[in-house]
């Protein structure tokens, strides 16, 4: 933290600068761009989940009216991926999921492109499809990637085999010893969740041109540098030949954390020499959504009568769909989500990323954490029931605190969850059984959750302008979260002693800004903010050096405030930043600064984890959610009566904006917990193709969320901040499930809790899951130890 700055100066409810244009319909998102000179592109997508492709005949389509180019596998044959390069952008000779692109057509009008795509002749030989993870585990299961062993490995260290795309394991301590102790009770449960679709309002869309030998791609993305790299890789050109720019993005939630349509627009732009736009229809957007993955979980715990968790073993199966995608990385997170929250004497975890012939999954707000928190918290309440302990008291005793050891052996700093639980009890009272006058069943839960911000690397440049304003250049993107219009200008302004309105924030342009991991996981305020703070330090140093000469005082005596360089203890005796900058420019040239940041690298216990992209968490973030609800025993309908959040924010720079994230994130979580459901039919396609059937919450489904911002927990972020946008969704599935279990007296094993499923729970007929393909013997669920 910059020692010359009082972090409290940064705290304010700065309004969004982009609100007015958005309210007037003036904001141009990528979907609103694309001029009459552009060609329009569409994809021909597979309509079966698994097939061999015998022939792709373009002869008719190529000569249809308006058609300018058709691209197929040979035009962009490179494979890409996170840990393994297993993903082509076009089908080569095998279709692996319903919706997989086979060809891309560019034509003068969209209608012409659609007609031509229909005229492409594809000769297929359908094959049996592997649609579920249990099918993928069968001894005689077809291999979705028969050549899995030959793929390029991008990140070393994971076990892989057949339909298991990736395995991440954690082993700390001796769980066998713990489970065989005479003083423990063994509690075991299986949990299952379906997929969740982001439904960001702006679909995936890209606009590409080929200019002076380089690609320029304007796109709706959270990850401009990933787009740059993937486009280059699949097209076989150097990364430096691709420029990516990103205007306002109409919602992301993780969906746009991957490269998507950009390579198709790029390859067609090069083939035609024209600019090309491509956008998903809403149906395509839904049918190929890179959803929060469906998952299947088995947890076993050995607990003593007084609530010590001597050992825990768990296996998480994460459905990748047809390609490894984000799940390869997200398997890392199980260690810190399912393996998080609680003090554990010993632990063994395995996260298996499983290939199926279904649309690939991706990243979604608090990826992996949402369902692992559901499973962990339901399991915890089941432990409490078996032990006869109060669930809040159990958590208060067992949550990780200062000096405690996490799953991978990292030592936690600070007591955070326990005081947050104390706040919950103080504010909302102890749990009690209530009878509702209308006969509905009352339930309450208090759940804890741990997310971690994968801070990673970011860079920033600040140019000080002659009018005393500053231009911040980063690869940040405004997807609605507010970082670019609130947190970053607040951080820069505080560090430079100017008003946030005088901080101009340039949105991502990979030709102008430095490398960055992208907007996701709650990292932007932290990592781009920290890089910006480092850039400010350089600017400040230059200003103070010049001012020290002009004011004839030591640099240490100077500080920046309200647009001026002032002498400590002598208010008004300094001069304007503008005047100092003018002198500095005359002496040395224009004042600028650059800064960078990467994760500080918290240590884990060596040898605990395998197949992990990171071994420890640089920035844990915690949440306590308290939910009261009523279950209608006649209909199975669940009404949320109160929803209360205590969130670890480090320092709340903009409390009003954080409120917006909490209300929005909790409501997305309520959708996941209660009503959003995707089912996959025998053709490997989602049954829910649009808003009519995929039901996201409306205004009538929600309530005001109460919240307390817990400040002061340790943070490596600028001014002590932590990311606040990701975590509000983390515990919601857990809180609703635990409260429904409390109301009904029956355990809950599956989400979403739609009325029919709640009726099954009420009747005690909810299938007690006992996945035959996930063994009770933990090591049998691993490649490494099995």
């Amino acid at each position, binding site marked *: 933290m910059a020692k010359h700055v009082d972090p409290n100066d940064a705290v304010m409810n700065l*309004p969004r600068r982009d609100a007015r244009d958005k309210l007037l319909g003036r904001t141009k998102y990528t979907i609103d761009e694309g001029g009459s000179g552009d060609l329009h592109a569409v994809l021909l997508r597979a309509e079966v989940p698994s097939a061999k492709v015998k022939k792709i005949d373009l002869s008719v389509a190529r000569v249809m009216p308006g058609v300018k180019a058709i691209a197929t596998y040979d035009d962009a044959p490179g494979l890409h991926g996170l840990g393994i390069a297993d993903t082509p952008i076009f089908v080569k000779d095998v279709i692996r999921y319903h919706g997989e692109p086979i060809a891309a057509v560019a034509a003068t009008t969209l209608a012409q492109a659609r007609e031509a795509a229909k005229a492409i002749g594809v000769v297929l030989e359908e094959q049996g499809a592997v649609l579920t993870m249990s099918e993928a585990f069968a001894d005689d299961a077809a291999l979705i990637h028969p050549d899995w062993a030959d793929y390029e490995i991008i990140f070393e260290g994971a076990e892989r085999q057949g339909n298991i795309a990736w395995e991440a394991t954690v082993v700390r301590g001796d769980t066998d010893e713990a489970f065989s102790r005479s003083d423990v009770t063994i509690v075991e449960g299986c949990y299952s969740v379906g997929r969740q679709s982001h439904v960001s309002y702006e679909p995936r869309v890209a606009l590409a041109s080929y200019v002076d030998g380089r690609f320029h791609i304007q796109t709706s993305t959270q990850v401009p540098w990933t787009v740059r790299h993937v486009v280059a890789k699949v097209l076989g050109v150097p990364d430096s030949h691709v420029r990516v720019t990103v205007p306002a993005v109409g919602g992301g939630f993780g969906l746009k954390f991957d490269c998507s349509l950009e390579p198709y627009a790029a390859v067609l732009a090069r083939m035609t020499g024209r600019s090309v736009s491509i956008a998903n229809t809403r149906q395509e957007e839904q049918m190929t959504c890179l959803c929060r993955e469906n998952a299947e979980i088995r947890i076993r715990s050995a607990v003593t009568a007084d609530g010590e968790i001597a050992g825990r073993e768990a296996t998480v199966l994460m459905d990748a769909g047809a390609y490894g995608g984000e799940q390869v990385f997200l398997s890392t997170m199980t260690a810190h989500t399912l393996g998080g929250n609680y003090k554990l004497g010993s632990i063994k975890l395995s996260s298996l990323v499983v290939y199926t012939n279904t649309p690939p999954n991706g990243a979604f707000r608090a990826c992996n954490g949402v369902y692992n928190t559901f499973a962990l918290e339901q399991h915890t309440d089941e432990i409490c029931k078996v032990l006869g302990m109060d669930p809040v008291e159990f958590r208060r005793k067992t949550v990780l605190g200062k000096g405690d050891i996490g799953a991978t052996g990292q030592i936690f700093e600070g007591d955070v969850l326990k005081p947050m639980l104390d706040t919950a009890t103080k504010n909302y009272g102890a749990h009690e059984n209530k009878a509702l006058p209308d006969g509905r069943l009352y339930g309450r839960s208090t759940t804890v959750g741990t997310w971690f911000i994968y801070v990673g690397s970011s860079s920033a440049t600040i140019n000080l302008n002659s009018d005393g304003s500053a231009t911040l250049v980063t690869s940040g993107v405004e997807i609605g979260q507010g970082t670019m219009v609130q947190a970053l200008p607040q951080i820069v302004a505080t560090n430079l002693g100017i008003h946030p309105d005088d901080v101009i924030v340039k949105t991502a342009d990979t030709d102008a800004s430095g490398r960055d991991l992208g907007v996701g996981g709650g990292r932007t305020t932290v990592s781009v903010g920290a890089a910006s703070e480092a850039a400010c330090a350089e600017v400040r140093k230059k200003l103070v050096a010049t001012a020290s000469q002009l004011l004839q005082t030591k640099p240490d005596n100077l500080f920046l405030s309200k647009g001026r360089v002032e002498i400590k203890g002598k208010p008004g005796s300094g001069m304007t930043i503008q005047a100092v900058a003018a002198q500095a420019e005359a002496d040395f040239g224009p004042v600028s600064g650059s800064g960078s940041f990467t994760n500080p690298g918290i240590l884990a216990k060596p040898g605990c984890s395998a197949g992990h992209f990171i071994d420890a968490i640089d920035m844990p973030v915690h949440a306590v959610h308290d939910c009261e609800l009523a279950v209608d025993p006649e209909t199975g309908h669940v009404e949320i009566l109160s929803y209360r959040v205590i969130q670890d924010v480090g320092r709340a720079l903009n409390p009003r904006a954080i409120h*917006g994230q909490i209300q929005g994130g909790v409501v997305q979580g309520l959708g996941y917990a209660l009503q959003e459901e995707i089912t996959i039919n025998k053709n490997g396609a989602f049954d829910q193709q649009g808003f009519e059937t995929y039901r996201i*919450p409306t205004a009538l489904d929600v309530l005001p969320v109460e919240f307390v911002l817990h400040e002061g927990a340790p943070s490596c972020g600028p001014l002590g901040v932590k990311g606040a946008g990701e975590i509000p969704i983390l515990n919601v599935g857990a809180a609703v499930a635990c409260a429904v279990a409390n109301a009904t007296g029956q355990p809950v094993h599956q989400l979403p809790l739609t009325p029919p499923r709640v009726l099954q729970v009420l009747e005690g007929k909810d299938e007690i899951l006992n996945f035959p393909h996930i063994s009770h013997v933990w090591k049998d669920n691993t490649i490494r130890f099995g």
Partner: protein
Amino acid sequence: MTIRLKINGENFDYHGDSRASLLEVLRETFRLTGSKSVCCEGFCGACIVHINGELVASCLKPVGVLEGMEITTIEGVGSIEKLNPIQQALEDHDVVQCGMCFPGMVMTFTSFFKSNPNPTRDDVKAAMSGNICRCTGYERIVDALLSIQMKGEVT
């Protein structure tokens, strides 16, 4: 065939396919991109416009049936210098996030407050059920709209 439309007080002639939706014509032909194309099924409300004063999901309306009609889109509501009271309340309460649903929200509530100057919270939420938002969780938008009633700005 030419279809004459009055959009935001200005005369437009449309010469294309009369089966095209009003939304397509606004966005593609006239480049009025404030109305958003999201669900194209009439559920989300992001494309809502006023046709002769009535709220209509423009994605569901073939342009061919609109000969001579007066259409108001988000581009015809408020200005950079002066927002209308709905827009102003939403800006003042800092409730916008990604922003894609807000043109439709503004159109719905600009109309709603004309006939419901003193709504309850439940009234506002019921009126909002045709405008789906994925970012905000609604309640802060409701708070902002109820502040208009308290200030008595829209009558």
